[in-house]
Every structure is written in C-alpha cells, then in structure tokens.
C-alpha cells in the first residue's frame, strides 16, 4: 500500500517550500489552494478507508530517525487522528481561499498556512510523543508568525502573549514527555505502548506527568485559568490565522486531552476535577462574551466556551462523551472557519468589526449575514448542523457519568445562544439603518465560507460518516 501519511505530509511540505522559495502572491495562493485541495481529497480517502476497510484503523507507517533512542518517524491511523486530519484539511483549504487585508508581501501568509497544515496533519497522525511535541511546536511558531506579521492593531503584543503562553505549555509538555520516556519499562515514546504500560509507572510520577500534560493542554484549548491569550490572539490575527488557531491549533490541546485521558488509569480519579474546570470555563466564557462588542472577540470567547464543553465530554470517560467531544472538535473547527471568514469579509467591506457600528448588513449582503447566523446556530447546537450531534453525544455522556450535574454546562450554551441572537438581531439583521460599505465583499470570501457551511451541514445531516467509526474504539 502507498505510504499515504508520508505522501500527505510531503504534498503540503513541498508546496510550502515551493511557495517560500519561488513566486509571488497569486502563484503562492494557487499552490496553497491546490495543495490543500489534494490533502483534502487524501483526507476524505482516509476517512472512507477507515469506514469501509477492515483493519485500516491502526495502520502504521514508520521510518527510523534517531535509532539510538528508539525514535521513529512513525505515523498511525487512529479514529480521532483521521477525523481531525479531515478537519485540518478543510480549514486549511478555507484559509487558503479566503482573503484578508492586503499586504505588500503577503505570499508569506500562504507559506505559513501550509507550514501550519503540515504541523497539524503530522500531529494528528503521529504515533509517538516525540513527533507530537515537534509538530506541536512547529504549529505554534507558524501561528506566532501569522499573528506577528499579518495581524492588525496590537498584533505584536498579541503575538508575544500568545508565544509566552504557548512556550510555557511546550515546556511542561516536554518535561512530561521526557519523564514518561525514562519511566516506561522499555524506554519508549510510542503512544500505544505507553497506554498499555502506564500502570508500571510509580503512582506519584503518574500524577506529576498527568498534571503537567493537563496544564499544557489547558493552555492550548484554552480552559479557564490559562485563557487570557485568546482574546488578543484571535482578535488581532488575520482572518486566516484566527480560523487556523481557533479551529485547528486549539484542537491540538483537545486531541492531547483525549489521548491523555485514555493513556493513564489516573484519569478516572481526575475526571471530576476536569469536569468542574470545563464547566467553570464554559460559564466564564459565556459571561465574558456578553461584555464584548468586537465580533472577533465574541467569536473567540464562544470558542473558549466550546473548549469547555469538549473537556466536559472528554472527562465523562465513556464512549458517548469521548466520541461527542471528538465530534464537537470537528463541528467547532468548521464553525470557526465559517465565522472567521465571514468576519474577515465584513471587515474588508465595512472596515469595522464592532457590533455597535455594523447595521443592516442583511440588506446589502444577505448571504454573508445569514452565513453568520448559521454559524451561530451550529455553535449552539441546532439540529441539522454538526454541532447538534456533538452536543447530544457529549451531554448523554456527561449525564450518564455525573448524573444531573452533567447537564449544567448546557446552560452556558443557552447563554451563548441568547446573547449571540440578541447581538446579531441588533446589528446584522436590523433594517432601520445600514452601515456604508467601503468595498465590495470579495468573491473568495463567499466561496470559503460556503465550503465550511457545506461541511457543517454534511456532518450534521449524515452523521454516520463519523459515528460509524466510533464502534472501533477511540484510540
């Protein structure tokens, strides 16, 4: 069989290198779209093989790398890996198609998008923690440069805050990975080996490793005490950066959580604390969101809220909760791609993101306005969108584990829904006055949010594409 994972990485990596070395804006954009398109086709092929080919889940590809320490370039198909690779491919395609403010030398944004996609695919498919760490940091650096070089307003401050939080997370992650390596019986970074041998690690060390990992992933998701980088980072990044960071980079943390909870037996002791943290985080985000007037900041906090719900799903530790969390990662990534590309378009054509100023967009560009409404629907879990399936699964899982307490986080989603509808109704959909548009909405923006919307409905109406995988087992 073809080494599919290496081919995907090679396509994206070579395209990134080609755009870095040659070409101008137009050429780079084309290359980025073509490479992301090919990757999307391959990711869909992965999904279908996972559904229809027995034994595809667990297929591994590996090359020796540093044999002295038993480090391999090894990749494996897991259920969350395949689903999130698909997400990364879709969001990268959306990001390559959409446009944001003009830059003199903006071909570099496509280099960064491809670098980011490379890191995301590598991370989701990696079979060992060493590669996981390497791709994690590559993703962080790509996002840092997206904010730092192409952001708006206070981009340098935002980028530095982002970097400091991220490297803090990376440092903890590195320490945890090295501890695991030296405490496993046969020193190994391999995730499945660690999962089956974690019980041989002394309990105190297990706890330390677990907490280090947990804090690192909390920073990235983000969960309550470590969230303060998001509002600046999401708001000041360019549209492409915002959708990649919120849609895919935050999934690095969520995916890590998923692996972490399945790797250590210690997780069953810790689950209730994680549930409480997730709930607090969701409500905190909901209340902060009500004080925002900037569309991007609103979306950023809605993203933090969903991360809290994802953690609730993961901490349920049963099939419903975990698969719901995975489904929510997919749905939420697509919602972010949709919403940030719409906001990017609005910023181009109206020159502002403030809901106090934006009025009557529905009259001038109805498509854009309604797309944003649909994005809001999806994030509040309206039926027929992917968010519905996800929320149903998560809360069945949470209620069966934590009893009626498991239903508490639903109210945070309700708060999100109330406020978002209220805000949209006042700004986008009000027809009394209209803001003046300063430029036409670029066609690319419409194409990009349509792709995200189609995917959102596709996974909402045909959930069996994903749910049929869940019988196989999550890891």
């Amino acid at each position, binding site marked *: 069989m073809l080494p599919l994972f290496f081919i995907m990485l090679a396509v994206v990596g070579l395209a990134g290198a080609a755009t870095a070395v040659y070409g101008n804006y137009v050429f780079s954009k084309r290359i980025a779209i073509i490479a992301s398109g090919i990757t999307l086709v391959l990711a869909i092929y992965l999904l279908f093989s996972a559904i229809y080919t027995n034994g595809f889940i667990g297929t591994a590809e590996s090359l020796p*790398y*540093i*044999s*002295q*320490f038993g480090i391999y370039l090894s990749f494996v198909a897991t259920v969350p890996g395949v689903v999130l690779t698909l997400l990364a491919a879709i969001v990268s395609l959306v990001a390559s198609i959409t446009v944001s403010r003009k830059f003199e030398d903006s071909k570099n944004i496509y280099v960064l998008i491809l670098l980011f996609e490379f890191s995301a695919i590598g991370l989701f498919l990696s079979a060992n923690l060493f590669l996981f*760490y*390497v*791709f994690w*940091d*590559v993703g962080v*650096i790509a996002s*840092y*440069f997206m904010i*730092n*070089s192409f952001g708006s307003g206070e981009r*340098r401050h935002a*980028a*530095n805050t982002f*970097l*400091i939080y991220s*490297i*803090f997370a*990376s*440092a*903890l992650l*590195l*320490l945890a990975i*090295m*501890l695991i*390596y*030296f405490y496993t019986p046969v020193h190994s970074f391999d995730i499945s080996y660690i999962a089956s041998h974690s019980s041989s690690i002394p309990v105190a060390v297990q706890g330390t490793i677990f907490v280090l990992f947990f804090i690192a992933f909390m920073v990235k998701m983000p969960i309550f005490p470590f969230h303060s980088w998001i509002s600046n980072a999401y708001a000041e990044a360019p549209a492409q950066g915002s959708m990649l960071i919120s849609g895919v980079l935050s999934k690095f943390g969520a995916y890590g959580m998923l692996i972490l909870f399945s790797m250590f037996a210690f997780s069953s002791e810790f689950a209730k604390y994680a549930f409480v943290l997730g709930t607090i985080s969701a409500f905190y985000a909901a209340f902060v969101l009500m004080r925002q007037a900037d569309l991007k900041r609103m979306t950023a906090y809605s993203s933090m809220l969903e991360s809290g719900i994802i953690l609730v799903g993961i901490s349920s530790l049963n099939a419903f909760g975990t698969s719901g969390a995975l489904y929510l990662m997919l749905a939420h990534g697509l919602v972010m791609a949709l919403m940030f590309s719409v906001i990017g378009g609005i910023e181009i054509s109206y020159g502002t993101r403030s809901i106090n100023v934006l009025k009557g967009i529905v009259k001038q560009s109805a498509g854009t306005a309604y797309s944003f409404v649909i994005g809001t629907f999806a994030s509040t879990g309206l039926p027929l969108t992917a968010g519905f399936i996800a929320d149903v699964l998560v809360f069945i899982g949470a209620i069966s584990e934590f009893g009626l307490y498991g239903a508490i986080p639903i109210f945070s989603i309700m708060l999100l829904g109330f406020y978002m509808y209220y805000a949209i109704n006042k700004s986008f959909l009000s027809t009394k006055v209209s803001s003046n548009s300063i430029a036409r909405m670029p066609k690319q923006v419409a194409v990009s949010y349509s792709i995200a919307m189609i995917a959102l409905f596709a996974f909402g109406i045909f959930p069996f594409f994903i749910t049929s995988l869940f019988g196989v087992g999550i890891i």
Partner: protein
Amino acid sequence: MQILVNFAIPVLFAALLFSGIATLFHKNKKLSVAINSSLFLLILVTGIYYSVTGISFNSLSLYHIYPFSSFLLMLFSLAFVLVSIAAYELDSSYLKFGMLLPLLSIGVFSVSMASSLLTIIVSMELMTVPTILLIALNGKDFAEPSTKLFLLSAISIAVLAFAIALIFPYDSSLSITQAVSGTIGSAYFMVLSLVLFVAALGVEAALFPFNLWIPDVYQGSPSGVSPLIAGINKKVAFVALIEISFVVFAGDKSSIVPVFEILAVLTMFFGNLAAMVQTNVKRLLAYSSISQAGYIMVGLASVTAFGLESSLFQIFAHSFMIIGAFVIAGFLAANGIESIGGYSGLYKRNGFLAFSLTVIMLSMAGIPGLIGFVGKFLLFSSAISSGLIALAFIGIINSFISIYYYGKLISSIYSGASGKTMHVPNGIYVVVFIAIAIVIAFGIYPAPLMAVSSRAAASLFGII
C-alpha cells in the same frame, strides 16, 4: 601513509605558524585569509578522517588523538574557517588576524588533544594572549575590553597553575591519564583543587560568579573578535573543564555533581534574567551565551557518558549558532544598527539576514526542527536519566524564560517601516549560510552528529 596519518597535525601546525609569520611580510589580506582557511579545512579533513576511522594514538608524546579530540578538531577547524572569513569581511585591518589566528588556533587545537595538564595550561595561555592582542591592537577605544580580558585571564591562569600544583605532589605526574591512577589521597586537597580548576576555567567558560566580564567584552570587542571569543574560546574552556573533571577527577564523582549542578542553575538563571532587560543586541547575545553555558553544565552535571554526549552536542550546536548570530550582529553594527529597536524593519531591508537571525534565535530558544532543540532535548533527558529531575525542570523553566527576549528580537525584525536595502558582502553571506545550514540540517537529521559525539564521549570515559 602511516607517517602521514601520525604527523598530519604537527605538520599542519607548522604550516599554520609559517602562514602567520609569512603574513608579516607579504601583507596581502586575500592571500592570508585564503591560506589560513585552506589550512583549517585541511585540519577539518584530518579530523574527519580520524573520526571516521576511530583511530587512537599518541603523537610526539604531547598530543593524544582519540575520538574525543577528533570531534573537537572537526568542530574547531570548521569554526575557525567561519571566523577567519567573517573577520576578513568585518575588519578592515585583517592582517592582525592573519598573523594571530594561526597562533591562537594552535592553542585551541592543543587543548582539544591535550595529554598533560601542562599542555592544557600552556595552550590556554597560547589562546588567550593573541585574543587580547586582537582586541587591544584596534586602538585606545578598545582599551577597556582588552584590559578586562587581560586581568581576568592572568588571574585565571594563576589559579589554574595553583590548582595543578596542589595535586602534583600526590601523583608526581602531569599526564592527565596517569593522574587518575588513584594516588590522590587527601580529600581536602582534592576538593580544593577541583574548585580552583572550576573557578579558573569558569572565567573563560562564562560560569556564574566568574562571568561578569563577558557582556562588556563581547559587546566592546571589534566585530571580528566577538564570534571568536563566544564561539571558540568559551568552548575551549569547557573542553579543558571536561578533560580535567571527567578524567583527572574521575574517581570523585560525588563532589563534582553538586558543584556542577549549582553552577548550572545559577548560570542559567543569571544569563536568562539579565538578558531580558537588554536593549543592545550584542549584549543580549552575550547574556544568552551565558545562559547557554548553563545548559551545557546541565549535561556535565550528570557525569555520565550520555550527559557528556549531550554537552558535546550542545557545544557544537551553540558554537555555530553564536558565530552566525555575532557575525550578523557585527555586520549590522558596522552599518550603525545596534539596538533591538534598530533591528525593526530588517525583514524589508535584507530578507536573508532577517531569516537567518530568526532561525538562529528560534534554534537557541529550542524550537523543534533546529539543532538547539536537539541539544536541549538531549541535555534535559540526560539530567532526567541520571535522576536530576529538579535540574531538568529548572532547565526547562529557563528555556521558557529565554523565549521572551528571543521573541522580542524576532518580533522587532518583522515590524516597522522599511529602510533602504542592505547589501551583504559575499564572505558574510557564506559564513551565515554555512551556520544556518548546520543549524537546520542537524536539527532535522541529528543522528550522524549524535553518533559522532556519543563515540567521542565514550572514548573520553574509555581512557580512564
């Protein structure tokens, strides 16, 4: 053939010396840099040959060639090629380099191959005196750094001599391999001697209480000299420290570990915390190189072959990172850009320099895919594997602190208005290109370098 193998190094030393003296007479900059660089390249080839064959022999009963010294021959000869080309481009009066670099390099190579304590002390002196001259010969503006360097190295050599004198009566031999044979009796004299050795070599190696001169000298030196002091002299002090503490004091691991551990922690924190408040880029690099000395000590503190291997890897890595960084900083200083604020817009003025400096900064900060990450990964792994978990944790915290100032410099490079485009001379281009090629190539595929450094580390433990 055998004679060629055995005497290649002495012959090349003679040729270097001749080339240095000949520069006095022909006074041709181009000829001088060409001859010196080709001699360094020949030493590189010899080093590679020794390393590949894994050969081990004594030459002229002065030098001991074994994988450890072959590794260092390769490292330092390549570094000297870069340093001499950079000095040729950065310094208008290259002739003093043409005369003194060969002399200095003989000192450096001799420390790497030393088989006796006397060789170490004489070669350290042979390395330091030309360095002081290289700074002092630039006129009275450079009196301050050269005086500082002179006074401190004079004291350090005196302390080194005293440290040797303390243990000499116990074994009546200056050979480093015989000193271990077990006759060192009194624990008191031994620990005192060890501490004096560490203090003497700590001055050049930038270990914490002995490194307050580093920022002034790195910043105040002429642009051609800073890469030399940071990239080569500092590493030579580490080599001497390794040879003495791992071979001469091999029997006394228990007193080495705590001393090195404390030095590592203090040096890392001092370097990183002081670097955070710097605004001058050369000074920032000086403090960052102090913190890197702390990381190297993390590997040495575990006193195992794995720890030594990771320290050697990091010595190699940091040598080329800091040479690249100081060459760029020196070139920009020559164009009047010295502060972090001045670096803003560098991206638009010269993309190559901006990209290279970014890669080097990211590598020093320990971002995966670059050589600095592999180095730090090995260092902290070695600390964990020998049970020094707290040390590894402190190292990782420091690595996290360092991202602040590296990030500050990077974000300055990619911001601000554009100025007029800068032209980079070919020599600088070549030097920086080689440096970042090493940083990226061994960052992506570190296995060969790790194999070589692991063989070097094993061979040092083997001679005991």
